[in-house]
């Protein structure tokens, strides 16, 4: 089942410079710890948005929105924001789209190559 966000634009939109700026807040040790924590948070949110009640999915979408925007994943942030704003119940298709967006972002962050083409 595909989900077409009405106004989320390209959900894969990502600015690596924003992430780099965020990760430059401290030395190498902090950078590695931050990357590890960001990945852990994304993995947790991917699970939460795919399961549980509508309320839990909405809360997870809210958290994805804030984290994604902060690390430069603007498209994913917009998509998550749209899901968060949906009327009850939060759609499974929308939640799945966010989960897929998180998976792509995790893949991008763990890849040693540059930003992946979508």
């Amino acid at each position, binding site marked *: 089942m595909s989900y077409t966000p009405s106004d989320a634009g390209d959900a894969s939109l990502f600015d690596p410079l924003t992430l780099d*700026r965020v990760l430059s807040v*401290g030395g190498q040790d902090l950078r590695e710890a931050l990357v590890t924590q960001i990945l*852990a948070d994304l993995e947790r949110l991917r699970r939460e948005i795919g399961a549980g009640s509508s309320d839990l999915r909405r809360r997870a979408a809210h958290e994805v929105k804030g*984290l994604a925007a902060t690390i430069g994943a603007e498209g994913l942030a917009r998509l998550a*924001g749209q899901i968060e704003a949906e009327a009850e119940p939060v759609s499974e298709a929308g939640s799945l789209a966010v989960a897929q967006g998180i998976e792509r972002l995790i893949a991008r962050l763990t890849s040693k190559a540059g930003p992946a083409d979508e």
Partner: protein
Amino acid sequence: MTPTDPNAELILLVEDTPSLRMMYGASLSRNGLTVEACGTAREALEAFQRLHPPVVLLDLTLPDGTGLEVMREMLALRPRTCVIVITANGSINKAVEMMRAGAYEFLVKPFDDQRLLAAVRNALAARHHRPAPRSSAGAADPAEADPPAPFIGNSPAMRAVYAKIRSVARSMATVFITGESGTGKELCAEAVHAASPRAHGPFIALNCGAIPADLLESEVFGHLRGSFTGAISDKPGAAAAADGGTLFLDEVCEMDLNLQTKLLRFLQTSTVTPVGATRPRKVDVRIVCATNRNPLDEVRAGRFREDLYYRLHVVPIHLPPLRERGDDVNLIARRLLVEMAREEDRRFTGISDEVAAIFRSLPWPGNVRQVINVLRNVVVLNDGDEVLPEMLPPDLRGAPPPAAAAEPGAPAGPSLNGDPLSGLAGLTLAQIERLAIEAAIARHGGSLPRAAVELDVSPSTLYRKRDAWEKADREG
């Protein structure tokens, strides 16, 4: 987190996303601040009671409660705490609700570490200027009963305004002032600035309605030499000039949509890019704005951006018209009369009971500015101990204008509605011009644009002259 410097200022950080907690905490720590971080409402309240932090960074959404509930508990315990709310984009309405409930400022994700640091440092500085909390008996500080300078009046409607000015002054919240023309919107903005921790910084006022639309962007954001015809030198712009202080945007609804977009970006990023420049510059400015229109009508009509409206309309202050302020009109009249009499070398010390009754009954569509015009007219054209009804302009006392021809030998009448030359002997050309313009404005209920039509000049001419008179009057 373990404090490394016992003298460093302590910030309590409440953010439920662990990686964001780590980012914000690291950003503040590397700038010399001590951070205690937690992720739930329960942890936050426990840490708050234990540590008494002066500043709290508080996420709006927590897993076990709302930011609003947590903030209310914190402020009930320690009212002088500065709470900076963190919210994600799209939750501006909730952030505004938090501001009205006592938050110091709000930050919208995503924000960079410079923005975060500026907000925290402002809050720490504001803490040192916060007034002492009220006593437990709830008795009001007598000083708080006095109107903030230069306001005059103690009607219930204005006491509510004074309380709001004092309450909002200590925060960074954007203030949106509404009210009819002549109600004192710029005075209100000055009072907010004067009562704020930024009082020692600049107060820059810009009337968006008095500046041609094609020059307004340059006036607000500055320009570089050569960026357009007539730009013969670099100009910093009002936003940069207000760095460290307050920028007052009067008649903000006069801005065109293109400039509104740039203003919104300025509010979101705290950066200005002068016309012709490529590099933005960070500025630290508190925004106060005003309009005599209904801003929501402008939004509905598509003339004002809704997102900008919500960004600006954080703390509204509505100035009541003079007709709703009871006897304030006479308090104002008596105070101003004495000052004008001194300037014009007249004997006036007060107004008669009949004049006071007339003043209380009038609608004053031009509000305080109309009172000033009337008093100026009276003082210039008359003399005595008291202002009497016959000294007032005829349209105020309900009498028809005097007949054009006066009896020979009769003293010159004080009216500008009869023979325009009578009663003007001894006045300078500038004074006569001012009387004529002010009389036209009063005839049109305080509306400068309508008076400009009658006088066959541009509204900007009348605005400039009025601004110059007000400045001269203030400087005495």
